[in-house]
């Protein structure tokens, strides 16, 4: 069923690309504890990718496994949110992006635990525990950095403003979401908004940060219609070995 295939790619691709971005920090973060935590989050996200894309490959039934989907598609076939392609920026920008995504991710997975698809529910249940930890952690750091020094406050507000219209893409509905919702597989993205708003508002308030008023949603990531220029560069790096040595196994 192609709608489900594509929907699973949306889940898997966002995990994959965010995992890639987060992994760029390895060995470069401001404190050892962050090196450890960021590597751990990247590890979890790549784990989720394997499950989502693995299932996508099965659903598609053309013999592509998770690796084939991750390493042999070009940018136009990716279905991740634009938010996760954004460059890391400073660690504050990375953590703000993480929080906005985690707050969506936890709600998304919470709903999927009751999916009509057993397989989807199973994956969601496994991922939920890890993502609970992700969101606790990123929320905590957003609060501490927002309500830290003037400098950190300024950086976090700037990151929030910069990510905001990207985050809005996570709540856009389209025909594919409609089809998947009608099949009882997953809630419409717009339905995740109230819980997300509540958590985000609470955290931003404690972080002394101002929620941006811009409701404009950047689009084109989850539909694949218009990614950012970053995705191609990410894939060139990520896929090099599989592209250069198509006959090898690793």
């Amino acid at each position, binding site marked *: 069923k192609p709608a489900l295939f594509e929907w699973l790619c949306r889940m898997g691709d966002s995990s*994959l690309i965010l995992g890639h971005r987060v*992994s760029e920090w390895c*060995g470069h973060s401001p404190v050892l504890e962050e090196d*450890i935590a960021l590597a751990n989050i990247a590890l979890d996200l*790549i784990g989720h990718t394997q499950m989502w894309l693995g299932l996508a490959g099965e659903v598609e039934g053309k013999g592509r496994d998770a690796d084939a989907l991750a390493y042999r598609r070009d940018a136009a076939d990716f279905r991740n949110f634009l938010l996760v392609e954004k460059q890391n920026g400073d660690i504050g920008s990375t953590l703000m992006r993480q929080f906005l995504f985690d707050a969506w991710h936890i709600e998304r997975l919470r709903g999927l635990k009751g999916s009509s698809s057993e397989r989807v529910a199973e994956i969601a249940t496994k991922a939920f525990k890890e993502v609970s930890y992700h969101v606790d952690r990123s929320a905590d750091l957003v609060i501490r950095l927002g309500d830290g*020094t003037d*400098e950190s406050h300024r950086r976090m507000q700037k990151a929030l403003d910069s990510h905001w219209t990207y985050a809005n893409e996570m709540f856009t509905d389209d025909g594919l979401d409609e089809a998947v919702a009608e099949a009882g597989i997953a809630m419409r993205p717009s339905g995740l908004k109230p819980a997300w708003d509540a958590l985000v508002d609470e955290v931003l308030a404690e972080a002394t940060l101002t929620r941006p008023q811009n409701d404009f949603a950047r689009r084109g990531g989850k539909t694949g219609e218009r990614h950012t220029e970053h995705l191609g560069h990410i894939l060139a790096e990520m896929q090099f070995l599989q592209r250069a040595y198509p006959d090898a196994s690793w």
Partner: protein
Amino acid sequence: EELEAAFQARIDNNERIEPKDWMPEHYRKTLIRMMGQHAHSEIVGQLPEGNWITRAPTLERKQILLAKVQDEAGHGLYLYSAAETLGVTRDDLTEQLLSGKMKYSSIFNYPTLNWADIGAVGWLVDGAAIMNQVPLQRTSYGPYSRAMIRICKEESFHQRQGFDIMRKMANGTPEQREMAQDALNRFWYPSLMMFGPSDKESVHSDQSMKWRIKINTNDELRQKFVDQTVPQAEFLGLSVPDDKLAWNEEKGGYDFSEPDWNEFFQVIKGNGPCNEERIEARRKAWDDGAWFRDALTAHAEKQAQRRGEGVLQAAE
């Protein structure tokens, strides 16, 4: 004098020295240097492997590599904590790394250039590290010894993973096989260097062995490493890049060529292939992260103050 004799007696008696125990200043200093260098090596060691995380060829390999690099950061954390029991702070040690006052293992000044290098680092570099570290589980300083016990367990896991990559590469396509051989060629001698110069030339050895913060001589360990590794290379079907390599029945070990110690000293001096990049990367992480660390401190202070005010108000 008396204290020192008692101290030495405890060591000779195989007792562990603990942080609150009396110890000679030089013992303390030597340990700080050793543990600090070891911790720095774990931290800098993230970089050559981190170089391939974004290019790992499968999702599973990417996970394994991420987990490994995460472990290394964790080892760094154990070791800094153990060093802190001797009265230095992690920040002090970091500053000394960045200023060049303290070193890290010079192996990490070599670049990782193809995917098989990730295998070779696990197989050879972690292999050599384990060889160095296993005896240190019995070292005289308690916190160091306990850190080494935890670390050695994980390292041997890493070594198996590295060997697994090498096996896959050595049994893969002709290009993969070439990469595997190339990796072995480039990492063989630097791995031998990891045991340090020959004992005749090693500066700190005697006193350290007496204090049991060094257990075996450099040459012993190097021989042991070669004896262990050569059959593994044969199993992989790869050739060790040493014309002189030959089994010596008499000594029950291999004869082998010494690494180029001139290269070793150049690398120590800063002329290794990646010295500048490695330290730059760590300096950038440190400098760019200053605002982050400051913010966490500021927030903690605010919180403490708020708690204090809360207590005050409750008392009123």
